[in-house]
């Protein structure tokens, strides 16, 4: 099957605009985290202008042979005047070092935040080439054809941008609107059913950046592209704006919001082996629930699956995790949930941890470290109790829950503390 893919000629997607990418039909796992049932494509493009040729992105290094063969079928290396890099992950910039060796006169266009990655990709060879750091709205004139750069930070890296071919209204969107789907018919109106792949890709790549996606759609919608040419999967030439709309929909909440605008949501998750951590959880819950303006929910992780909880956490303002310490660690369901939060944006949410222990109680600080790693705020030191809590200790748990809820509700009082107390 692979051989027929490899021999497919370049595809002229518009007059003088060619797809020169590569097919990877045998890929089943992308970047260790994404599944694909029929491989992927690394899409690159060549735009012919009156005064030169621009190459838009390259391909993964292992597929450079396909890329160069297609490139050579539509132009010569001498004719290349510009290399536009929308994103510098290795599946798009993998063939860049070799392309620049073959076309050293070409001028590289990369966003300002992409410079470090460009340096890391080309190493000392960068000194041999010319490059321009592009800002939002900057243009590249190819002679009768204009490429306008549209910065789309965090879709899905800080440096990512799209490039818009103004006269033809083609948006080269790189990973935005991409899908891991390999079909040599290339166009969305011809390929097999890729709807699942499109949504799956969004969920795993773009979902943590929903806020940024919405900002990017604000820039893309007025361009009203007639065609969207992403770097993975089908080229969207039929109803391209439907896919823009779809990104807006996918960036909304998974669940209808039950909370009023003034209410904060606090979720408490726990696991308990002997009931001690469960007792703590109920007291933390009682304390937090006493604060007006905070809606508190309590969940025993033994009774739930990870994915729905991830959806809940995405919409919540704060989370408290309770775990006993077993073999010097938090228990696996807690880690499974915390590991899954990489798919959503947790920045700035409030986090906390508590738990009962018998000997050393490592679970609580380990959870707190993970929450900080997720860029959450951990304002109160975790609550640890040896074996079953006393009435006094349960009261401490209530106060702990209350303190977290007060912070969420904006009712925390100003504090002056000494470094030694931290």
């Amino acid at each position: 099957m692979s051989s027929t893919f490899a021999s497919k000629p370049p595809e002229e997607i518009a007059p003088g605009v060619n797809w020169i990418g590569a097919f990877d039909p045998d890929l089943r796992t992308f970047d260790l985290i994404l599944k694909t049932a029929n491989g992927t494509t690394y899409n690159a493009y060549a735009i012919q202008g009156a005064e030169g040729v621009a190459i838009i992105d390259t391909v993964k290094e292992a597929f450079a042979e396909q890329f160069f063969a297609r490139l050579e079928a539509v132009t010569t290396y001498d004719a290349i005047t510009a290399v536009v890099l929308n994103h510098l992950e290795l599946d798009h910039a993998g063939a860049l070092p070799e392309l620049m060796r073959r076309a050293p006169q070409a001028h590289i266009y990369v966003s300002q935040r992409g410079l470090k990655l460009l340096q890391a990709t080309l190493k000392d060879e960068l000194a041999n080439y010319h490059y321009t750091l592009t800002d939002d709205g900057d243009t590249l004139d190819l002679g009768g054809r204009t490429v306008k750069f549209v910065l789309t930070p965090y879709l899905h890296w800080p440096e990512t941008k799209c490039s818009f071919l103004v006269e033809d209204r083609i948006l080269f969107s790189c990973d935005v609107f991409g899908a891991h789907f390999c079909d040599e018919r290339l166009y969305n109106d011809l390929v097999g059913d890729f709807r699942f792949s499109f949504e799956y890709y969004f969920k795993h790549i773009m979902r943590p950046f929903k806020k940024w996606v919405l900002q990017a759609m604000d820039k893309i919608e007025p361009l009203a592209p007639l065609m969207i040419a992403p770097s993975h999967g089908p080229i969207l030439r039929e109803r391209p704006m439907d896919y823009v709309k779809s990104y807006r929909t996918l960036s909304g909440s998974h669940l209808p919001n039950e909370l009023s605008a003034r209410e904060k949501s606090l979720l408490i998750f726990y696991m308990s082996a002997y009931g001690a951590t469960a007792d703590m959880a109920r007291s933390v819950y009682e304390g937090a629930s006493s604060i007006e303006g905070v809606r508190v929910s309590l969940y025993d992780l033994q009774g739930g699956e990870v994915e729905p909880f991830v959806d809940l956490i995405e919409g919540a303002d704060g989370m408290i995790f309770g775990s006993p310490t077993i073999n010097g660690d938090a228990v696996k369901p807690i880690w499974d949930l915390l590991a899954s939060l990489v798919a959503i944006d947790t920045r700035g949410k409030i986090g906390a941890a508590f738990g009962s222990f018998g000997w050393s109680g490592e679970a609580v600080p380990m959870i707190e470290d993970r929450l900080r790693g997720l860029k959450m705020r951990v304002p109160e030191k975790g609550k640890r109790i040896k074996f079953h809590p006393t009435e006094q200790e349960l009261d401490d748990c209530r106060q702990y829950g209350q303190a977290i809820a007060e912070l969420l509700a904006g009712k925390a009082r100003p504090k002056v503390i000494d470094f030694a107390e931290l």
Partner: protein
Amino acid sequence: MAKGKLTFADIDVSVNVPAGTRVIEVSEKVGAGIIYGCREGDCGTCLMKVEEGMENLSEPTVLEDKVLKENMAGKDMRCACQAQIIGEGEVKIKPA
């Protein structure tokens, strides 16, 4: 030992800190909103706005200066993983 006062304006918490303390050593412990990435002055994730007392922070190193420029940071901004409180003055900061 000389102590400075570091105030996190976003959460209204002040900490009395020994001279030489980096902001990163304090901000996570009090739950302030500054977010960290590489933690070594390379990525610019932890940019913070210095509302008061810029003169009571250590001068940016060559590396931090480069990162600030790359991120088009204003004159009142620093990297929280790099900036140290010097002397006994007050510094008031918030996330950028």
